[in-house]
């Protein structure tokens, strides 16, 4: 990251070539997957119909949710101090959703008719997968509008920039509504699997838990990114933003913890937590590392330092990753378990697409105005 965003424009950053190589490898493997099919290129089977791509998508969507949380805080709650991080957050969100979209496209078997999800006569409003597909598509278009001024102003198209600025509340508002829907619906997708998903994770409150998780994960990802990028660019760090990110995070972590513990107790699942099997341990690990630890950091004096929200973000992201991994992969039991581990193609397509997103981010940072000038950073 640091190497990518170095403001020295004369030389190509050292991270460029490896990222480019990984991206090209990923693109090549993606074409290979489309030609030979899922059976040959992946290790998915009738026992594991979803693999690493779905798990990565389920994790990337809340991380890229940073764009929506920051929009809410800055546009609607009147937090002017967040304005300096809107653009970096929205671009990260857009590229994150781009990766999600590409991986989903590669994952569906009948990709030549992916557009069926938009055909009015086919749409199933009861299907949370349909809802996620529609909302993610529409939200990606919203992110295009939100990030467009970065490019339009550089190329001198002032009129459309003014239109977007005038309509920003409607645009950002629609983005927030769509995000609330699909972030929660990602959890709702698993409501259809009460007998398959492990009971410590399955609950009717899944939509609410996934939504709260998306909010604190997005805020955590923002804290991590702001610290790394600001440091790399040599911008003065605004401590106020960190404290506010940390406080907003802590509220959502507390709500999540309360619902999670309440659900475990209400459903009588506490004995399962005390059993020394791998799921009981995993639930403990997720709760202690992903919820309790970041909450402890944020409720202490550390919230006032940049490293507090930064580390809280790191641990919260680990917790979110565990939850999404269990829900989409290891917690979905089959009667005759056949093991699944992603193939070389699955792994390197995933890495390649993420590398491509970093590459594009670096290019935009280098050639467009994504960050405020240092003298305005304190505003």
């Amino acid at each position, binding site marked *: 990251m640091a190497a990518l965003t170095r403001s020295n424009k004369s030389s190509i950053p050292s991270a460029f070539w490896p990222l480019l190589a990984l991206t090209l490898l990923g693109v090549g493997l993606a074409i290979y997957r489309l030609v030979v099919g899922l059976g040959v290129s992946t290790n998915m089977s*009738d026992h594991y119909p979803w693999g690493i791509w779905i798990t990565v998508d389920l994790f990337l969507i809340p991380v890229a949710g940073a764009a929506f949380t920051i929009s809410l805080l800055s546009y609607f709650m009147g937090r002017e101090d967040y304005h300096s991080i809107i653009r970096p957050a929205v671009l990260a969100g857009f590229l994150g959703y781009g990766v999600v979209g590409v991986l989903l496209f590669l994952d569906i*078997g009948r990709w030549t008719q992916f557009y069926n999800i938009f055909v009015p006569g086919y749409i199933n409003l009861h299907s949370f997968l349909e809802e996620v597909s529609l909302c993610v598509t529409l939200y990606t278009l919203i992110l295009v509008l939100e990030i467009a001024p970065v490019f339009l102003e550089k190329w001198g198209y002032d009129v459309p920039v003014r239109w977007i600025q005038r309509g920003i509340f409607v645009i950002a508002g629609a983005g927030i509504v769509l995000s609330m829907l699909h972030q929660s619906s990602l959890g709702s997708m698993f409501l259809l699997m009460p007998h398959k998903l492990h009971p410590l994770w399955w609950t009717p409150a899944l939509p609410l838990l996934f939504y709260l998780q998306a909010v604190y994960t997005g805020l955590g990802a923002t804290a991590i990114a702001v610290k790394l990028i600001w440091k790399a660019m040599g911008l003065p760090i605004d401590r106020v933003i960190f404290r506010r990110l940390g406080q907003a995070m802590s509220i959502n972590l507390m709500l999540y913890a309360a619902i999670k513990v309440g659900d475990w107790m209400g459903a009588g699942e506490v004995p399962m937590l005390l059993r020394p099997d791998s799921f009981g341990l995993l639930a403990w690990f997720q709760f202690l590392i992903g919820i309790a630890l970041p909450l402890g950091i944020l409720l202490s004096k550390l919230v006032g330092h940049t490293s507090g929200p930064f580390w809280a973000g790191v641990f919260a992201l680990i917790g979110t990753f565990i939850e999404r991994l269990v829900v989409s992969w290891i917690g979905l039991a089959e009667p005759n378990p056949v093991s699944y581990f992603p193939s070389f193609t699955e792994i390197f397509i995933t890495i390649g697409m993420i590398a491509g997103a970093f590459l594009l981010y670096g290019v935009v940072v280098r050639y467009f105005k994504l960050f405020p000038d240092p003298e305005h950073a304190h505003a």
Partner: protein
Amino acid sequence: MTLSRRDFFKAAGLAIGGAFIATESAQAKPDPNEYAAMLYDATMCVGCNACTNACREWNKTADEPDARLLYDAPSELSADTWTLIQLYQTEAESSFVKRQCMHCVDPACVSGCPVQALQKTAEGPVTYDQDRCIGCRYCMYACPFHVPRFAWDTAQFPVIAKCTLCADRVQDGLPTACAERCPTSALIFGKRGDLIADAEKRISENPARYVDHIYGKDDAGGTSVMYLSGVSFDKLGLQDLGDKPIPEISEGTANIILPGVLIGAPILLGMIRMTAKRGGWEETWPL
């Protein structure tokens, strides 16, 4: 400015919510007792696999032979094997059990399918339309019976495959191919209501022979393929799923969340924004 924007969102939300409720009420449910159905009596099955062969012939699915290519030997459902007989055996007891799509009265696969490629037809079968299917495989996870299979080895445009309850035959008034072929009448075809009455009669006439339960009568909200057995159903891989339809919680949540967020969230955003404009957040909320 704020007010008009709020009104706009409100109107849009109401329109979307209204359309949603309209599509909801348009669907009247047929009587499940009239559905085409099958009753499998495990105590009468001799495991001859004639049903599997009849299914292959009618649906033109490929054999899955053993390593020596001597015997069609599928061990579980696959994209090519839509029904098969499995054997549960211990020293104390044994039973055959037939596997195929259960054709739920309220199917989770149909509820989950984003593009309505899976549908519950008025006659009872759950059918699949490959021209709609995008290959997302959500149905495979939604199904509590682990039935839908995916044609992984097809390089281009693999399909979801499962028993169709011979929807094409049922439409013409014919029984399913497997039930027609069964030599011991362990598998019979008929109207769901009639088969339930038949099954109840068998249990009451021969209580020692059967577990006192018709699996599928109420399980998972009822299925069109029902089972009688002499050994407990969970040993045959027929899990206790409760009597509620699997999609109940998911669809109930969809009915609340979709209109709720589409109408409620814009109003909430408008209120948050107005409060912020008056400077309210600075005083009341320290973030």
